[in-house]
């Protein structure tokens, strides 16, 4: 009888861990508990379910990328309810108990719903997190003509574009002075903002919603804090996510924002590991604890956890608090490391054209690259990430970094 691995959560981190474990331990017994009904899928792809460009079949994990191993038991519809660390058992909402030798908490996150907005539980209000949310949005968008997006983050922007493509009119209400404020200073967002405006997205900034208005068919409008109202038949809330740690309530496990993780992805309790959105990791640039909700980080941390669970001790090299790449309104974008430089003393260099913007950020003393923001032109972004994350010595290449002439050859041993 092989070792029993139980994985709580069947998305990026959990499935990356499961496939890594299977590669390392051919005899282990791997069970993944997922609270979703669908089999594991590429979560960042769900905006394509809204606009119908992809079907669920197209976005399932199995067989793609690193998810090619067999012999993994994925139990869908099994949400974890409680853990007994003494008896090494996890009990699901449906009452089943699973014994483990090693357990991974990769339960992910749930959408943050601001308490000061009334009516967010109304029919026609969505937060885009799961395949089922996307399917719900696709259905509602068949009859809706106008949708209000609350929040100007990357996920809401993707959802907004999916709805624009379905010929809905879309208004985005953003409390911050500009969209994507987590990924860049407002003044740096101009190429994106221009493209969004040109694409027909109606953006209102510096405004907050106070209430979702309803009639017999669900949502019929949104009331704003400037006293005005917008009529709509659908609302999408994108105000960030919170780690899903509810099933650990009452346990003596260290939780601070998310689940504590040591450098080897282990929690404060023996034989229990954590990875992904629910885990707290250290940002190698700022040295601070951080929780992010990025697929790429979740996969990397999940692989690391999988290695550690099989006994291959591996340090998780960390999660950049800010790191994302995407394309919105035909404009590519990469943001990573420290990119908010307004009123800061960092050494920054920016290069601007009408359609592109490249800003790079060095430490105050100018000796280390700590951030980069590329909009419209993302060439060699990976080299910059490498320098930031690995804290590379920039002697001799700093001018190349500033002038965007850096290439891999600069890192070869002469």
């Amino acid at each position: 009888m092989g070792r029993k691995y139980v994985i709580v959560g069947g998305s990026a981190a959990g499935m990356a861990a499961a496939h890594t474990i299977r590669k390392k331990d051919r005899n282990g017994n791997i069970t993944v508990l997922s609270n979703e009904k669908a089999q594991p899928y590429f979560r960042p792809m769900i905006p394509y379910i809204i606009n119908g460009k992809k079907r669920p079949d197209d976005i399932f994990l199995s067989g793609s990328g690193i998810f090619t191993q067999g012999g993994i038991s994925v139990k869908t519809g099994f949400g974890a309810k409680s853990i007994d660390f003494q008896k090494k058992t996890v009990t699901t909402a449906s009452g089943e108990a699973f014994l483990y030798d090693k357990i991974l908490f990769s339960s992910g996150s749930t959408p943050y719903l601001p308490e000061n907005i009334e009516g967010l539980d109304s029919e026609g209000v969505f937060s885009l997190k799961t395949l089922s949310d996307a399917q719900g949005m696709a259905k509602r968008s068949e009859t809706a003509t106008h949708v209000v997006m609350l929040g100007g983050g990357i996920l809401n922007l993707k959802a907004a574009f999916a709805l624009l493509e379905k010929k809905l009119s879309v208004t985005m209400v953003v409390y911050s002075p500009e969209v994507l404020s987590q990924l860049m200073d407002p003044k740096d967002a101009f190429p994106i903002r221009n493209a969004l405006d040109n694409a027909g997205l109606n953006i209102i900034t510096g405004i907050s919603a106070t209430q979702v208005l309803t009639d017999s068919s669900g949502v019929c409008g949104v009331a704003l804090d400037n006293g005005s109202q917008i009529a709509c038949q659908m609302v999408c809330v994108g105000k960030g996510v919170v780690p899903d740690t509810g099933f650990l309530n009452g346990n003596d496990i260290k939780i601070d924002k998310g689940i504590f993780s040591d450098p080897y992805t282990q929690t404060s309790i023996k034989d229990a590991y954590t990875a992904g959105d629910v885990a707290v990791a250290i940002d190698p640039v700022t040295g601070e604890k951080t929780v992010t909700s990025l697929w790429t980080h979740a996969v990397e941390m999940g692989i690391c956890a999988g290695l550690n669970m099989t006994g291959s001790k591996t340090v998780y090299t960390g999660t950049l608090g800010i790191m994302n790449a995407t394309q919105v309104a035909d404009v590519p974008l990469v943001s990573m490391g420290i990119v908010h430089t307004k009123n800061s003393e960092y050494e920054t260099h920016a290069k601007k054209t009408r359609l592109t913007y490249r800003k790079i950020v060095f430490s105050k003393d100018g000796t280390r690259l700590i951030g980069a923001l590329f909009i419209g032109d993302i060439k060699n972004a990976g080299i910059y990430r490498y320098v930031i994350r690995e804290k590379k010595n920039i002697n001799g290449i700093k001018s190349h970094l500033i002038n965007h002439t850096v290439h891999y050859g600069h890192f070869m041993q002469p």
Partner: protein
Amino acid sequence: MSDLKEIFVNTQHCTGCLSCKLACAVQHSKNKDLFSALSQDPKPKSRLYVEWLWGNTKVPVLCRHCEDAPCVNACISGAITRAENNAVITNTDKCIGCWTCVMVCPYGVIGRDKDLKIAYRCDRCPDQDHPACVDACPTEALTYATVDKFSAEKRQAASREVAQGQGG
């Protein structure tokens, strides 16, 4: 040991003639011949790059098909997989142009096709015995060999240099 081949780069042999880039672009054009490639719109793209370094060293840079490839881990659409010949391949049907792979590639060798809005990179010419760049290279700056063979030759060359050094 593995008998799978890789493309090896010897910067000391590279003269910067760019034959490799031309051959790569032609090989990845519709009709795979130079004259129709020239008139193809949008122009076919080379998947390798020749950079200049320290005085006059030329550095051909192309996808290393990394053992633990960051792009495979990072891909959010499942488009990037490892093929049987060990090459890391981007499935053009699945790629959605999110550029996460561009963000994580430390070699900077994943390109952004602005027309098709998908990522492209070296595919080691799966339909050919040899990658087009290797065949086109006149100086053996690019070679296609197994790791074992390449390192054996490296060792032999190194020992020859040592022997010559001792003789001189």
